[in-house]
């Protein structure tokens, strides 16, 4: 039909996206570093940068290398036991939620899907509540993230089964199934909570956690969250080519050789691990999984091989900055982290929803 040899069009594509990618990371990596530094350096108590540097030196370098300038115990506690773990937890929670958002958007073939929206978040909350009220969380710290993952997994299966028929997920059905399942799961969680209030202090802790936030995160929380998030992101990176094809529709994916059923199971499991790990240490924080992948997709395009790692890094930096905002905007009180992310994500969500409905109408 067309015998003229083309100039290599693919070289063109890959070089174009590579250019995008290097510029993108050229901006993103300094932002990630700056956000982590700012998260540690800025807070309600003023601590000088030189003190922070001294604490880092004390903690990270061998004894022999450190200089002998003294650091007060209070400064050391604030920097090393309060701020650093909080910033690290924020980073991994943000990365996990953003990566989960990417996976769920491919699974539901819908840019609106997000852990909090498709029931995974509330499922994880319910799992966490169960591990609190049964006392498992007291016997093993690991039970909290594990139960949160199981809860997220169950919720995803329910919502998927409800909203998807023959590999097609209409927006309205997805949102309704997500809302209904979330409402049901959170009602069960509240019920469990109200019939099990033995210890007022524990109940308060649970409520606080259910509302979402990063107050009083410790190194334990870092170890409970970070390994699972890393595991989840590595598992997602293995599935990026399946994700691309699934985004075009299940039938298309199958016809190009994707084992759709097993691929969807893996995806759901990975999304549940990421959501569970994030919710276990920070409670339910909405809109990160919606906002971040969407923004990154606008810049880098929808190809999951580039979208996934970029979204995870951006999500981490985004949540660190949101948390910084939440604890410094109105001192000495902290604003709930969920308020900040909802203020950023809510308008975007409404915009996306309107655009999708306009797309359907056309």
């Amino acid at each position, binding site marked *: *039909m067309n015998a003229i040899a083309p100039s290599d069009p693919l070289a*063109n*594509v890959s070089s174009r996206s590579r250019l995008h990618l290097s510029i993108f990371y050229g901006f993103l990596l300094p932002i990630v570093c700056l956000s982590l530094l700012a998260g540690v350096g800025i807070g309600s108590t003023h601590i000088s940068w030189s003190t922070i540097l001294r604490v880092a030196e004390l903690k990270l370098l061998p004894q022999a290398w450190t200089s002998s300038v003294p650091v007060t115990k209070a400064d050391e506690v604030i920097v090393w036991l309060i701020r650093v773990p909080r910033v690290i937890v924020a980073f991994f929670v943000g990365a996990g939620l953003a990566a989960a958002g990417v996976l769920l958007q491919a699974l539901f073939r819908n840019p609106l899907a997000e852990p909090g929206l498709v029931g995974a978040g509330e499922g994880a909350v319910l799992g966490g509540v169960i591990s609190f009220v049964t006392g498992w969380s007291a016997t093993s710290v690991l039970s909290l993230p594990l139960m949160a993952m199981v809860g997220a997994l169950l919720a995803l299966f329910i919502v998927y089964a409800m909203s998807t028929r023959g590999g097609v997920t209409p927006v309205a059905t997805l949102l309704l199934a997500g809302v209904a399942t979330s409402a049901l799961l959170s009602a069960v969680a509240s019920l469990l909570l109200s019939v099990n209030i033995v210890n007022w202090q524990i109940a308060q802790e649970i409520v606080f956690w259910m509302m979402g936030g990063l107050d009083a995160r410790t190194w334990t929380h870092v170890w409970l969250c970070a390994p699972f998030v890393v595991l989840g992101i590595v598992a997602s990176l293995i599935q990026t080519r399946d994700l691309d094809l699934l985004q075009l529709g299940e039938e298309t994916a199958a*016809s190009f*050789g994707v084992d759709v059923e097993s691929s969807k199971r893996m995806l759901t499991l990975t999304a549940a691990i990421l959501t569970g790990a994030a919710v276990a240490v920070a409670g339910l924080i909405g809109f990160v999984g919606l906002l971040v992948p969407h923004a990154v997709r606008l810049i880098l395009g929808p190809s999951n091989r580039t979208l996934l790692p970029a979204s995870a890094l951006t999500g981490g930096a985004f949540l660190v900055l949101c948390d910084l905002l939440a604890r410094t905007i109105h001192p000495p009180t902290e604003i709930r982290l969920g308020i900040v992310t909802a203020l950023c994500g809510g308008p975007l969500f409404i915009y996306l929803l309107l655009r999708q409905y306009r797309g359907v109408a056309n």
Partner: protein
Amino acid sequence: MSVLEARNAIVKRGGRTIFGPASVRIGAGEMTALIGPNGSGKSTLLRLFAGLWRPDGGEMLLDGNAIHSLARKEIARRVAFVPQEIQIDFAFTVGEILAMGRYAHRGQFSPQSQVDHAAINSAAAYCDITHLIDRAINTLSGGERQRVLIARSLVVEPEFILLDEPTANLDIHHALDVLQLCESLSHKGKTVIVATHDFNLVTRHVTRLILLQGGLLIAQGPQEEVLGPETIREVFQVEAEMVPMKTGHPVYVFHQRTRETHDFRASR
């Protein structure tokens, strides 16, 4: 040359047989059209051939082996399926869409090889979409998008190409364009199966017609044998007049719906 075959294939939904039993063989560089009214089972037969659905009775065979006993990737390398135009909410570029066609040929971690590269380039050139390679798929016109979907199936380098209503949303110019493309593929040795309800468009391009109604194969063969005015009246419930054309293939002019309908399933 490979052969796709249905042997007494049956599809049931909710306990009811909606398709078959049907037996048919397709192979060796043919271009075949599956025709019939809406709901006649064209798409079902196409999905059975593509291994996307598994028959509830009987067998679907690729070179004598049950299709569902083959690995998903193996089927994908040999039988390409072009779906009816679908809404894609994500702005993949045409280049990215084409590259996805190499899924079954590449390992999960292997980078794109020279062979992948060459397959993508030649498919793009063949379907005349090289200039669209950087465009986002959701900014293309219907005709362009259909060419992209066909090009993606060529990227697979399959033996069979199955198309579901490829001309359904196209104007006459682009519809003929797409059918010409399909015909040229069959001349290149690919076996092409097109499911369509618009038989007036396809008859001059295909070597064989398979007529379906109510999930049953009514007739198969060349146009003269399959599509007489009586058959059209019974199957499509319209009166048809055959008008001879310069090309040698008659076209049909339709008028006036007949009252009584013929139920093939009941009369068996």
